């Protein structure tokens, strides 16, 4: 067991670590952050490739064409949309799919909003879907092509271009003999809610809030799905979106497939509106900045934990899915819907070749460009280095603690048995030396005396130590996080009888809780003779917090690396720095830093950045104001996501980030020695 059983070499390492811990922590953090961002630089990442050979992308000749007049269909849809602001072209689509000879169905569902939103009213919705049965195989597998239905009043871009492409594909696919998987054409209502309702209905899942009706017909196991968001003709370029619920990503092979086929048909693909860097520029500073920007945008989308499109909900059912979003420009858009149709045809021909589920290639990756990727093996190392600085600090504190515990051994009254884990036994061994000369062998009587002797465990030092001193703090953090987690339901049930807006009720409730948590170290402080003082074994608390934090970050990194990375970048330096201090400046500096990384500030900054991306008007003050009003809405949306789709973000914040921050906050309030 090498390092575990050889005390000599271990002693050496432990000594080194505890002596240079500050330098090591800083170095680890800086190296980790820089290394992580450097992964976007071309020489440090790799070119994507196909692991699944069965896909054979682009081998077949594409034969797709619209056998109807596209422009007349577009006018029909527009007519349909104009009829009512809230109308979606559902019936029109149903009619057209029927006419094309496809077996088409409607699915009804009702939505029951949580948290007393809309006073518990039920909201109805309807999806349309059609199934093209495979001719050459046993119809046990299926692929899905989906388009969201949007009304004129929707804030998001229209999607009728996608509907036209879908109809064209229905008419073309139905004549082809080669399908060995069923193809499901799906148009969903109410964005993610409709999609969730259809998926729940398909897989017989019942939830309290989305209640799907029984599907009239179904197909086999769904292997993959493609979601189209195409506003109109005149397409300038395509965006590929892959970030799913809770930061889950689809298999990289599917992403590669879509990118490859788009490129083959001359259609430009981008990630978050950012084009790839050309090979010539890739290794220049500008090229690096551009790909780093793309990677950060992708990480930002992943970190939010909410799906960037309807595809994101498929991942939970073990179905690989991406969204292709078209960006249209009236004047400069070069591509027509035909090109998109041929791309989708190619994708479905490839999916048709699949012999087994997507299982090769990568599920954990970051993309600095559509054709470059950073795999888990590459990004985990710098991330682990960042987390290492927490662990090093924790070890250093632990060593200090155990050294402190064995110090009182010079006094013979105190039993060694009370000491904490002794990594250094030399102390005990040397102190016995004086006794050995004078002492004599024990007999039964002297033994009895020693055994009965009253040992004063509690040393006269008034500095509290041990687990008991930090127990109140830990317990109150736990209570705070439970309050935070259960708060919304309680508040919303209170808000309704008071005729308060639920959104406001919950938001102000959270602000109240946050204010209470700011005051909480003061409340816990014990009243001694003169004044209130908060005194506890801060080294132990900090060591435990650091370990808890690294565990949390590492566990999170396995599911959502982007969120873990952003949290680590924020939390690691502050948590390593914070300690009780005598100097006013350092005390207030620490408190300021802690306030900056408090869950509330994190949320606010995140909203500001998001509003920044949305629109650039009204100046910086207007932006901050907008973000403030968006914040309460954003909090409510996250909460609702938790009930509808099982989003973990809220649970993560209330049970991991919040208590972690609380204990750091209370450390900054501890009396210094």
């Amino acid at each position, binding site marked *: 067991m090498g390092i*575990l*059983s050889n005390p000599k070499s271990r002693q050496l390492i432990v000594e080194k670590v505890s002596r240079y811990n500050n330098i090591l922590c800083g170095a680890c953090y800086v190296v980790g952050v820089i290394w992580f961002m450097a992964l976007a630089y071309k020489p440090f990442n790799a070119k994507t490739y196909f692991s699944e050979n069965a896909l054979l992308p682009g081998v077949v000749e594409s034969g797709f064409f619209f056998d109807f007049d596209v422009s007349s269909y577009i006018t029909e849809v527009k007519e349909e949309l104009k009829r009512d602001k809230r109308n979606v072209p559902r019936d029109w689509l149903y009619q057209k799919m029927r006419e094309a000879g496809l077996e088409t169905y409607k699915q009804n569902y009702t939505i029951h909003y949580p948290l007393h939103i809309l006073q518990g009213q039920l909201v109805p919705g309807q999806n349309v879907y059609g199934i093209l049965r495979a001719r050459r195989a046993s119809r046990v597998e299926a692929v899905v092509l989906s388009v969201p239905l949007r009304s004129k009043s929707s804030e998001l871009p229209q999607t009728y271009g996608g509907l036209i492409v879908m109809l064209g594909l229905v008419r073309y696919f139905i004549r082809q003999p080669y399908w060995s998987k069923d193809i499901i054409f799906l148009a969903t209502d109410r964005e993610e809610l409709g999609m969730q309702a259809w998926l729940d209905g398909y897989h017989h899942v019942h939830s309290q809030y989305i209640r799907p009706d029984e599907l009239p017909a179904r197909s086999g196991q769904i292997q993959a799905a493609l979601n189209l968001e195409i506003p109109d003709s005149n397409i300038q370029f395509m965006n590929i979106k892959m970030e799913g619920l809770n930061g889950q990503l689809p298999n990289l092979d599917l992403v590669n497939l879509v990118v490859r086929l788009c490129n083959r048909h001359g259609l430009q693909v981008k990630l978050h509106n950012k084009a790839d860097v050309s090979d010539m520029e890739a290794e220049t500073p500008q090229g690096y900045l551009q790909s780093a920007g793309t990677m950060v945008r992708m990480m930002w989308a992943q970190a939010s934990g909410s799906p960037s499109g309807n595809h994101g909900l498929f991942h939970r059912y073990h179905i690989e899915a991406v969204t292709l979003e078209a960006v249209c420009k009236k004047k400069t858009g070069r591509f027509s819907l035909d090109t998109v149709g041929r791309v989708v045809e190619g994708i479905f021909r490839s999916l048709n070749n699949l012999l087994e589920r997507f299982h090769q290639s990568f599920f954990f990756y970051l993309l600095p460009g559509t054709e470059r990727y950073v795999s888990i093996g590459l990004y985990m190392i710098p991330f682990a280095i960042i987390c290492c600085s927490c662990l090093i600090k924790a070890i250093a504190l632990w060593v200090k603690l155990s050294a402190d515990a064995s110090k009182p051994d010079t006094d013979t009254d105190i*039993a060694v*048995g009370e000491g904490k884990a002794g990594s250094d036994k030399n102390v005990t061994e040397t102190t016995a030396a004086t006794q*050995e000369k004078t002492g004599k062998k024990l007999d039964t009587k002297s033994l009895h005396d*020693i055994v009965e002797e009253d040992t004063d465990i509690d040393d006269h030092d008034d500095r509290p130590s041990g687990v008991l001193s930090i127990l109140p703090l830990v317990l109150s953090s736990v209570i705070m996080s439970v309050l935070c987690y259960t708060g919304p339901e309680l508040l919303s049930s209170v808000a309704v009888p008071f005729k308060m807006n639920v959104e406001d009720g919950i938001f102000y409730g959270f602000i109240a809780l946050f204010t209470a948590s700011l005051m909480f170290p003061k409340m816990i402080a014990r009243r001694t003779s003169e004044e209130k003082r908060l005194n506890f074994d801060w080294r132990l608390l900090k060591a435990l917090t650091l*370990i808890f934090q690294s565990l949390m970050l*590492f566990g999170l990194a*396995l599911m959502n690396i982007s969120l873990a990375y952003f949290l680590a970048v924020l939390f690691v330096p502050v948590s390593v720095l914070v300690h009780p201090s005598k100097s006013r400046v350092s005390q207030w500096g620490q408190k300021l830093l802690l306030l900056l990384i408090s869950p509330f500030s994190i949320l606010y900054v995140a909203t500001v950045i998001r509003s920044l991306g949305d629109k650039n008007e009204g100046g910086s003050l207007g932006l901050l104001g907008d973000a403030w009003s968006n914040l309460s809405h954003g909090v409510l949306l996250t909460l609702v996501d938790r009930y509808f789709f099982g989003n973990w973000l809220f649970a993560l914040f209330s049970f991991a980030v919040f208590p972690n921050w609380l204990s750091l906050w209370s450390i900054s309030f501890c009396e210094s020695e």
Partner: protein
Amino acid sequence: MATGIGLGLCFAAGIILRLSLFRTNLPDWFAERVEISNALTSWQKTLDGIALQDNDISPYRGDLFHETPIMLRVFSFVSKVLSSKMHYFFVFIDILSGLVLASMGKEFSRYLLQKQVNNVKNYAVGVEKIILRKDHVDLIPLAIVATHFLNPYSVAVCLGKSTAVINNFFIFLTFMFMLKGNLLMCMGTIAMATYQSLYPVMLLVPAAIYFQHMSGQTKKTESSQFITGCGVTSMVGVGMTLGLYLISYFLEGSMRFLGATTGFILGVPDLTPNLGVFWYFFTEMFEHFRPFFICVFQINAFLYTVPLAVKLRDHPVFLAYVLVTLMSIFKSCPLFFSRDHPVFLAYVLVTLMSIFKSYPSYADVAVFITLLPMWKHVFSYMRNTFVVTNMFLVCMVMSPILWHLWIYAGSANANFYFAIALTFSTAQIFLIADLMFGYLRREFDLHNGLKHKLDNGKDAQIVME
């Protein structure tokens, strides 16, 4: 007095914690976790078995039910009485275990002091500092009960309604009767535990040594006599176990239950992933090698009893004093070990059981974590507490995450989960190795004094090899 209040507080805290957590949706989640309920201990399977029994179908016909016939009747009775309030039963068992542990702790502290008095003539000069004191030892029952009620493993097992809590209860009882010196009851509880999960049969060895040692405490018994005595005592336990099987036979009217319970444990037909190492190995294996490797694995699980019993009986386990700069300085290393570590041996065996058994779960971990404070006086000699604690924490957090990624998200695979299972086993081995080192190191200090010098006057460092 203070201890009494402390005990009361622990009981109250534990009961309130369990009952309030039963009102959340955690128990449903725990009941599905493979780390908590496996084929042997799942409450759902027990309910299925009871339903089959009620419909006059032998539950042992299929591959569904693996509780023993006597336990089936007990559970069937209890579930009919309590019906939907079944969780009270599990809390009740935990309370009973708590009572047993409190009593056991008291006996154990008495035993420790007694042992110290018996051995004092062998102690070296100047060891006053590591002599056990009464007011330290008196805290042991409190520490054990607190750990039992508040450690996350015990709580999770209780919430998950794992039927292994019954088995754990019998193991605690075994320790209690052993320390009380009640041979028949001790053998009876070992028999009951063995009847349920087979592996506790190993506990016969320390129990036999203990009772043999007790009867011949003063006079030095011959080695052959000692072994014969042990054999006779173990025979009592084996006989009782056989008796239980016989009763089951009369209850069931056939021996079919044997294949579904003991056979199921030995043959490992269920390869549902768990925190052990069996499933991974046997899913990868060609069918015709299976019997051979099953024998190897099962023998491995039992094998450690022999060397441990021998070492902890006559010869000290620690063995090696590898010295830092020069070798072999302790030329005259006296082998002071008397036959007095049966309780420690029993503890080591309980831990080993949970590492090497075919269907381990957190219930087995809960046993040895609960009993860990028995060795409070050894903690200061342990060197890897930090590493081992962190390994346990990491496993506890990571195993559900990796399970989710593998089974639900489909983005990870079996290797990820097995890595955690392996880490968990390693953590347990580190813990027990470290504890053994600490224990033996303390004994060594008691017999050789606290100060070890090399010939050249440098400080010696004692290493376990």
